[in-house]
């Protein structure tokens, strides 16, 4: 077939299709967030705000003024960041060992990680709910951080192990020959080389924690620890029979913004991490 015009047209059409596919629902929720609440209550079908139904930034101001909502964003940022840092530290140690050392139990760690990656999250909700209430972790930050850590570890370990295998390890040996201990060689030589991989693992971990819903609604009961996805889903507004769609849309846009910024800034690293962890890893 070669590069026939037909094929070129096909690729251009395909590319356009991908863009529409990815961006249409995002454009829609942004559009909805600018519709006035009255126009939504009265029913305003259509993609863009109708004549007189444009609300400007009103919904965003209202969402941001909502105490419950602000608190949830704060919880999400704090919990996700702490879980990410802890998970990446622990995963880095493990991935280094897996990529670099021969030891008993390597297979055990890999298969445990694999099993956890497949674990149905909901099946842990019951026992964790029971356990957390017994030891006082229910409705606290650590009560979410610990499950987030264990569920992001598999992805982080694989991604990092894949990166670590590509590092020229002779440099570590050279450092050891020069008198450095294994630990020093690891810290001074390998850590700087591994930093980009660690960063990628951190982004993916953060995504998971930010996106989590099941733990967020099951292991919290108040604003003390409830993260933003859970808070959005429980947000009812003044009329319990009519969810404030445009207000929710504004909240949803605010909640998505941090992720979109990260995606735009680091798309290359994210693609590398996702595919190396799953296909090459």
């Amino acid at each position, binding site marked *: *077939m070669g590069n026939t015009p037909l094929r070129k047209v096909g*690729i251009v059409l*395909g*590319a356009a*299709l*991908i*863009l529409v596919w*990815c*961006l249409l*629902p*995002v454009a*829609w*929720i942004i559009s*909805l967030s600018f519709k006035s609440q009255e126009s939504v209550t009265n029913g305003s*079908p*259509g*993609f863009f705000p109708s004549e007189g139904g444009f609300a400007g930034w009103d919904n965003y101001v209202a969402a941001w003024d909502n105490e419950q909502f602000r608190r949830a964003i704060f919880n999400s940022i704090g919990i996700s960041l702490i879980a990410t840092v802890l998970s990446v530290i*622990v995963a880095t140690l493990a991935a280094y*060992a897996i990529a670099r*050392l021969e*030891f*008993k*139990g*390597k297979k*055990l*760690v890999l*298969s*445990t990680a*694999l099993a956890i990656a497949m*674990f*149905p*999250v*909901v*099946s*842990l*909700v*019951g*026992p*964790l*709910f029971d*356990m957390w209430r017994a030891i006082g972790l229910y409705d606290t930050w650590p009560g979410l951080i610990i499950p987030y*850590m*264990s*569920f992001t*570890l598999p992805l982080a370990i694989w991604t990092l192990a894949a990166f670590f295998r590509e590092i020229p390890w002779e440099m570590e040996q050279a450092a050891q020959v020069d008198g450095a201990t*294994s630990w020093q060689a690891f810290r001074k030589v390998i850590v700087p080389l591994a930093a980009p991989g660690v960063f990628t693992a951190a982004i993916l971990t953060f*995504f998971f924690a930010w996106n989590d*819903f*099941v733990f967020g609604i099951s292991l919290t009961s108040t604003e003390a620890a409830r993260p933003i*996805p859970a808070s*959005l889903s429980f947000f009812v507004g003044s009329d319990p029979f009519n969810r404030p*769609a445009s207000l929710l849309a504004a909240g949803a846009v605010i*909640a*998505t913004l941090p992720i*979109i910024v990260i995606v735009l800034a680091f*798309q290359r690293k994210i*693609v590398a991490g996702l*595919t190396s962890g799953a*296909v*090459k890893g």
Partner: protein
Amino acid sequence: MSSTTTAPAGVAKTPKSKKAGAGAASDRSVAENRLGMKLVAPALVVMLFVTAFPMLQALWLSLSNYALTAPDDRSFVGAQNYVTALSDPLFWRTMLVTVGIMVVTVFFELVIGFVFALVMHRVIFARGIIRTSILIPYGVITVVSGFAWQFAFSSTNGFVNAWLPFVEDNFNWFGEQFPALFAICVSEIWKTTPFMSLLLLAGLAQVSEDMIEAAKVDGATWWQRMWKVILPNMRAAIMVAILFRALDAFRIFDNIFVMTGGAVNTESVSFLTYRQVIEQFQIGMGSALSVLLFLSVLVIAFGIVKLFRVDLAAARQEG
């Protein structure tokens, strides 16, 4: 001289370094073994603490009649909870809904994702823009994508009814089981197809261009190249993609919670489990459902791995 020095040096070096390695082996390997275990221990402990330990507890709890609303009535009932669950049509309905969603979404994700991957593999212009936008659905919170699609399908505020010529403008998608499941599947497919296409793209990139060229020279048509050369060589990547997406789809929960709240028979097994434990405080019954959910996932994973006859650990460990 110069040509002879390089070759013997290389030959001479090999046995020497091997010998040195063997001599230090016992000492070094013991230290290495110890260090390896130490480095891996924290990860293993965290992972097991939140999964293996609670799962064992679930197994134990599932054998008792235990509801938080009446904690004093806790008693050992053996397999009673499992019998109740497995003989309840409600359980089988949620199972059917879940498997249905899994099969439909994974099928469409695979087909659409593969088309996307082919386009991304060949596209020359605007690569950055396409790669960035394909990550946006992946980054959007599932709850938010659920909301976006729920409002899009809404008969009062959405645009779907207005855009689809064969649907009446006031059609309520969430009033009946199949339309509601359709909307749920659409939101799931939208969100996760990009992930699928990225995995498939990585698989495509690993198929050697030489082989494709050779097939072309031998006169193979586009279809023949696709079925005989490209797809067989992507088997591992396709299997990993299907496996991960299928297990993910089987756990479906977020979209259903947001879009229908389980109404009009759209409950999944995950949803039923959540409702038993968190809303009705039936820890015993909920634990039995948790165990059944876990077993289903194991069966699906085993089935897919067997179906593709690929050793997953090997596929993941090798470059």
